[in-house]
């Protein structure tokens, strides 16, 4: 395979070393102090999340800066943003697995875990942003005493199902891939408690050839299905907007535009997390510069595609000749919220160009900074799409303005805690890199090395 022409893992380690190097992370945790600091920080944010949500539930969505016309802002904008971040996990894992890109193996497990946490953060929003969240279950078709059913033409109805499906599939995909490694850790664990813990979740995996055969089929099937799922989910999210007639939303390029943006922001997130984890857990042998280099290339590619989306959206507006579309576009350039548009352009695409150079791609610090900038950029983009479209739609008389409140930010920062707390627990207690797949690769590479 193409990418194995140059070994992606150093050959001077044995299969056993791999078990040791990764397996020791959960069993004999290396970076206690930084991890603890991180955990405390994210727990604090999590607390903020609960406070904000309690406040929200007590008084109503009015605590946010919403109004008519801008009656969707932070909640929906962050829902889209989080979900976008999540997508990269699935994409890296699934797509690259199918393409047999071995370099994925050292990254996919983070990525998938990140997906899970991100989807949880995203999934929270559509429920808490409701005026009467305690009735959210009305969105499901169940035989109610009212005799009324949900309305399946509504993009919000689509939304609930898309997110649920996505959450379930990512969870299964992640867990199924995890089972063999749980077995490895189980067998290496010395303490009884760990043995039982991993033992139960390994489901008694024995590595039988027959099991492997079925397992591979199931895993690859899931992967094969996960790719169209990602595309469908974020396309559906984009329809949340495109289904309305609001200028700036009502456009056919929204689905691809959203999916690309999602992958883009997601890859950036993966890169950042991979860099941090490998730095603190000393996994340089597993997550190599080679990996980061490839990841950086993917980031660059998806970034350029997203940039194309930007260009085309503008072109689309002018090409349509629709006065209101054009007005909205102008307003994005020069209007009250122009900062969000130019901010998005700046953060998304300017630092990104550094990735043309190998030195930048291989420099952890620079790559991390670029990743950060992209995540910020996409944040601004989602905000821009939401607010600049809503605050000036059709009737001049109902033009409005949107100003965030403390609780907008409280809820948002809170979800960051909601994201990192489980993620930190994951890297602490679960093999955060695929052990068996790395062994597979290593073995193959050794073989290839031997036979010239």
């Amino acid at each position, binding site marked *: 395979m193409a990418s194995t022409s140059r070994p992606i893992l150093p050959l001077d380690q044995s299969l056993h070393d791999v*078990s040791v190097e990764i397996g020791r992370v959960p069993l004999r945790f290396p970076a206690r102090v930084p991890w603890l600091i991180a955990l405390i920080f994210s727990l604090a944010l999590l607390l903020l999340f609960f406070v904000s949500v309690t406040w929200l539930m007590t008084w109503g969505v009015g605590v946010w800066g919403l109004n008519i016309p801008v009656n969707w802002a932070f909640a929906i904008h962050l829902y889209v943003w989080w979900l976008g971040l999540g997508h990269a996990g699935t994409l890296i894992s699934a797509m690259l697995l199918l393409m047999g890109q071995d370099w994925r193996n050292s990254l996919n497990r983070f990525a998938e875990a990140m997906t899970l946490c991100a989807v949880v953060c995203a999934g929270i929003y559509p429920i808490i942003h409701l005026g009467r969240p305690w009735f959210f279950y009305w969105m499901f078709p169940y035989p109610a005493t009212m005799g009324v059913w949900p309305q399946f*033409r509504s993009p919000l109805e689509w939304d609930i199902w898309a997110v649920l499906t996505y959450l379930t599939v990512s969870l299964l995909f992640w867990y199924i891939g995890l089972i063999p490694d749980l077995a490895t850790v189980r*067998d290496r664990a010395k303490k009884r408690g760990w043995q039982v813990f991993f033992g139960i979740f390994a489901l008694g995996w024995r590595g039988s050839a*027959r099991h492997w055969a079925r397992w591979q089929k199931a895993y690859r099937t899931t992967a094969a*299905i996960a790719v169209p799922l990602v595309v469908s989910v974020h396309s559906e999210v984009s329809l949340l907007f495109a289904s309305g007639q609001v200028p700036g939303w009502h456009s056919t390029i929204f689905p691809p535009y959203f999916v690309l943006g999602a992958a883009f922001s997601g890859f950036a997130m993966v890169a950042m997390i991979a860099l941090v984890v490998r730095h603190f857990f000393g996994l340089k042998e597993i997550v190599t510069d080679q990996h980061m280099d490839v990841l950086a290339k993917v980031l660059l590619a998806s970034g350029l595609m997203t940039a194309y989306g930007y260009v085309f959206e503008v072109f689309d507006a002018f090409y349509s000749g629709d006065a209101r579309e054009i007005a909205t576009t102008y307003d994005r350039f020069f209007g009250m919220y122009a900062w969000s548009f130019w901010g998005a352009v700046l953060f998304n695409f300017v630092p990104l160009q550094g990735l043309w150079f190998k030195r930048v791609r291989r420099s952890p610090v620079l790559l991390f900074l670029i990743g950060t900038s992209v995540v910020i950029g996409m944040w601004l983009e989602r905000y821009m799409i939401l607010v600049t479209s809503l605050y000036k739609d059709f009737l001049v008389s109902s033009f409005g303005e949107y100003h965030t409140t403390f609780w907008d930010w409280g809820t948002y920062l809170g979800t960051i805690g909601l994201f990192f707390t489980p993620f930190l627990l994951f890297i602490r207690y679960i093999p955060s890199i695929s052990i068996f797949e790395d062994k597979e690769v290593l073995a193959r590479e050794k*073989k290839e090395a031997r036979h010239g």
Partner: protein
Amino acid sequence: MAEPPILGLLGEFGTADALLGAVKRAREAGYQHIDAFSPYPVEGMAEALSIRDHRIGWLSVIGGAVGIAATLAVQVFVNFDYPIEVGGRPLIALPAFFVVDFELMILCAVLFPIIGMLWMNRLPRLHHPLFGTPRFSLASDDRFFLYIEADDPKFDRDGTRGFLGSLGAWSIEAVRP
């Protein structure tokens, strides 16, 4: 004196290739009830053990079909059960319905094979005789095992032990209930 009964013999090998070779030899030798254990899926092992199982794939197809059919059925039913005009749209608005149909098709297409896989693998199974054998824990690390079951017609305690030895097994252990 009669030795305590055993379930089979477990031979340990150092590399995937060794295991693969051993399996092939064992098949040639006419052993039927054999299994191989490895820390990662070994290429060609399925062929060597002549495992031909396409049910997983089909489960996925079936799941997808069931998912989409069921969802569509629900959507059509609720719109007939309580027909309400919505924005002048038709009662059965397939383009709109299809988004949810698709999502649930995917959900079921994933659930079915995964549950099926676990079911066919008889998992979860926390207690298994193999776990009782001292060196088997290495199967998840860097060793490869060939397992010949006692109920194999060709199984003969000493003969098979010798056979495993001839395959170059590093160690040979009896698996006891």
